[in-house]
C-alpha cells in the first residue's frame, strides 16, 4: 500500500478530529479557530479554521459548542480551559502565536502546571495547549524569512520548559505531529505543543488511524558515529541538512530528534554522545537559559569523561528578531554554523 503523504497542518487537524470523535469531552478553544463560531446565519461553515488552518473543517463536524471561538481574551480563555480540564473536559487551547505567551502566562505557570500538586493529586489537568512558533517561510517554503518581526517570530521554548508541572513537545514533521498531538490530548497532564511555521506545509507519511508517539521519547533521525547533533522542531531539519554536508566530507553525524523537551529523553542523548563523544545542540531561541544550554550542561556533567570536545550550542543570538530580510536571516541558526561547530570539535581531536 502506498504511503499517504499529508502536511503537518493536516496531521494536526486529523489528530484533533480523531480524538474529538473518540472522546466527546475533547473541545478546542481559540481565536478564529472557526471564525465567528461558524456564523450560524451561514449554516456553521468555518471561515478561517484557525489563522494557519489547523482547525479547518472541525466546526462542521463538531459544532460551535466544541469548536469554541474565543474573544481576544487569552488569559481569560486559557484559565477557563484549565478550569474546564479540571471539571471533566479535555480542552485544546490554541494560543495562535507563541509570542502571545506573555498575555496568558499565568494560566500556564501558576494554574495548569500547579493545580494537580495543590490538590495533592486529587485532580488532573488534561489540557493541551498549542501555538505556532518561529520564523515563517516566505516565497520559498523551505527557507525561513517571513518578516513577521520581533513580536511574531519567537520560539520561547525555555519559558515553557522551565516550568515544573508542564510537559512540552516540539515535533519535527507531520508524522510526529500527529502522534504527539494525539498523545498530548490523551495525557492527563498539561502539555504544550509547539508547531513550527516552517514545518506546517511540509509533508510526511502519516497513517490514517489514530496513534501516539510517547511524550518523553526522542528519535534517531539519522545514525552516525562521529558526532551527535541534537535538534527539535525545525532545527532537526537544520541538523539533517548539516549531516548531509558532513557526510560529503566523510563525517558521520548522528541526529537526535528530541521531539519532547519536557520530559527530556536524556538517555537517548547520552547514549548517542557516549558513542560519538561529541555533541552539538541546535535551537532557534536566544542562548541565555536556553534548552540548548540546558542539555549541554546536563551532558557536560553526565558524560564528562566521555566527551572528546566541548559541547557546542548553536542558538539565535541574544537579540530581538528584525524585520528586514537583510537582517532576519542572521537570526536563525544555519546548517553552516552546525558544520562549523563540528569542524571545531574535530579539529580538537
Amino acid at each position, binding site marked *: 500500500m502506498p504511503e499517504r503523504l499529508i502536511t503537518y497542518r493536516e496531521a494536526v487537524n486529523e489528530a484533533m478530529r480523531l480524538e474529538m470523535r473518540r472522546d466527546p*469531552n475533547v*473541545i478546542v478553544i481559540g481565536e478564529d479557530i472557526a471564525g465567528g463560531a461558524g456564523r450560524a446565519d451561514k449554516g456553521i461553515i468555518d471561515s478561517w479554521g484557525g489563522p494557519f488552518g489547523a482547525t479547518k473543517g472541525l466546526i462542521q463536524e463538531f459544532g460551535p*459548542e*466544541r469548536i*469554541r471561538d*474565543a*474573544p481576544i*481574551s487569552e*488569559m*481569560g*480563555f*486559557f*484559565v*477557563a*480551559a*484549565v*478550569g*474546564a*480540564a*479540571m*471539571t*471533566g*473536559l479535555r480542552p485544546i487551547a490554541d494560543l495562535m502565536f507563541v509570542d502571545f505567551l506573555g498575555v496568558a502566562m*499565568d*494560566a500556564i505557570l*501558576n*494554574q495548569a502546571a500547579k*493545580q*494537580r*500538586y*495543590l*490538590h*495533592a*493529586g*486529587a*485532580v*488532573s489537568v488534561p489540557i493541551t495547549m498549542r501555538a505556532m512558533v518561529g520564523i515563517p517561510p516566505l516565497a520559498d517554503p523551505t527557507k525561513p524569512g517571513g518578516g513577521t518581526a520581533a513580536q511574531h517570530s519567537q520560539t520561547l521554548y525555555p519559558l515553557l520548559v522551565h516550568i*515544573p*508541572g508542564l*510537559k512540552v513537545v516540539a515535533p519535527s514533521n507531520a508524522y510526529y505531529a500527529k502522534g504527539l498531538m494525539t498523545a498530548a490530548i490523551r*495525557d*492527563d*497532564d498539561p502539555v504544550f505543543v509547539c508547531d513550527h511555521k516552517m514545518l506546517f506545509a511540509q509533508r510526511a507519511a502519516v497513517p490514517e488511524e489514530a496513534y501516539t508517539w510517547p511524550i*518523553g521519547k526522542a528519535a534517531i533521525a539519522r545514525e552516525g558515529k562521529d558526532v551527535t547533533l541534537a535538534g527539535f522542531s525545525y532545527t532537526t531539519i537544520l541538523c539533517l541538512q548539516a549531516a548531509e554536508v558532513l557526510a560529503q566530507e566523510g563525517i558521520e553525524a548522528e541526529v537526535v530528534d528530541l521531539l519532547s523537551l519536557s*520530559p527530556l529523553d536524556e538517555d537517548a542523548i547520552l547514549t548517542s554522545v557516549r558513542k560519538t563523544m561529541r555533541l552539538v545542540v541546535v535551537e532557534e531561541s536566544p542562548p541565555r537559559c536556553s534548552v540548548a544550554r540546558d542539555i549541554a550542561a546536563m551532558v557536560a556533567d553526565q558524560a564528562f569523561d566521555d566527551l572528546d570536545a566541548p559541547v557546542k550550542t548553536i542558538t539565535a543570538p541574544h537579540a530581538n528578531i528584525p524585520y528586514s530580510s537583510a537582517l532576519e536571516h542572521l537570526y536563525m541558526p544555519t546548517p553552516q554554523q552546525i558544520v562549523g561547530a563540528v569542524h571545531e570539535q574535530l579539529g580538537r581531536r
Partner: protein
Amino acid sequence: MSLPREELLALYEKMALIRGFEETMRQEMEAGRLRTYGHLYAGEEAVAVGVGSHLLPQDYIAISYRGHGHSIVRGTDINGMMAELFGRSTGTNKGKGGSMHIADITRGVVTANVMVGFTIPYAVGAALSLQVRKQSGAIAVAYFGDGAVNQGVFHEGLNMAAMWRLPVLFVCENNGYAQATPVEYSVPVPIMDRAAAYNIPSAAVDGMDVFAVYETAGVAAALVRNGGGPYLIEARTYRYSGHYVGDNTLTYRSREEEERYRQRDPLLLFRQRVLDEEMLAAGELDAVDARVKERLQEALRFAAESPAPGPDEFMSNVYASYP
C-alpha cells in the same frame, strides 16, 4: 422571608463554624503554635453561607486565599482543613497547599487560588464544562473581592460568560479593602454596575445580613440554574482582621469604622432577628455554639495527632506521570 427552622439552624451553624474556624486559626497563630500566611474570612460569613446554601452537590465553586468559609459551606471536612493549616499529611491537600489553597474537589471546590481575580475564569471554565457536558441544572460560582474587579480576567471572564450564556454566578465580596487600598480609591463606580458592560444582570446586597444574601442569591442562583445565563452579585461586607493575620488594620482604617461593622456582625444580626421574631430559641443557638466549639477542639486534636507528610510526598503529584 420565612425559612424552616432546620434551614435557619443550618445557616447559623455554618456561620458559627466559619467564625469558629477562623478564630481558632487566629488564636493558634497568636499563640505561636501555628505560623503561616493566613487570610481570615471572619465578618464575611453571611456571604458564603447565604450564597452557598443554594448550591447543590453537583455545583462548582472557585475561591481565593480567603476561602475557608466557602469550603466549610461546601461541607469540606473540618478535621482535614485544620490538618492542612498545620501542614499534615491528613490535610485536605495533604499539606501541599496550606491555608491559601484548601480545596476539596470532591466537594466541587475547583481551586483555591492566590492570583487575585482568577477565580472568575476558573468558574467560567467549570461552567463551560457543564454546558458542553450538558449537565444542565448545575452551576459554577466565582467568589472574588472588590480589588479583583480591576483585574483583566474579571472583564474577560464576564464577557465570555455573557457571550456563551454560561451557568455561572459571580459573587463579588466587597469588603471595602484590597490589602490596604479602599475600594473607592480603585473602582470609580458601584461594582454591581460593571455587569452592564456585559449585559449581565446584577444586584447589590447587604453582605452582613444572611437573610438578605440568602434571598438575593436564591433568585440569582435559580436564574442561572434555569438557563438564564450569568449573574453578578455584589455583597457589601467587611473583614474583621487585617488582610492577613498580623496586618495592622489601623494604619488604613479607623477603629470607629471597625466598630460600626462589628455592631452589624452577621451572627449577631442573625441572633437578634431570629430571637426578636421568635423563629428560634436562644438555647438552640447556644447549643450550636457549643457543638461548634467541640468540633473545632476535635479538629485541633486531629491535626496535632496527624503525621507530617513524608519526604516521598515532596515530589509526588507534580505530574500524573513523568518518566
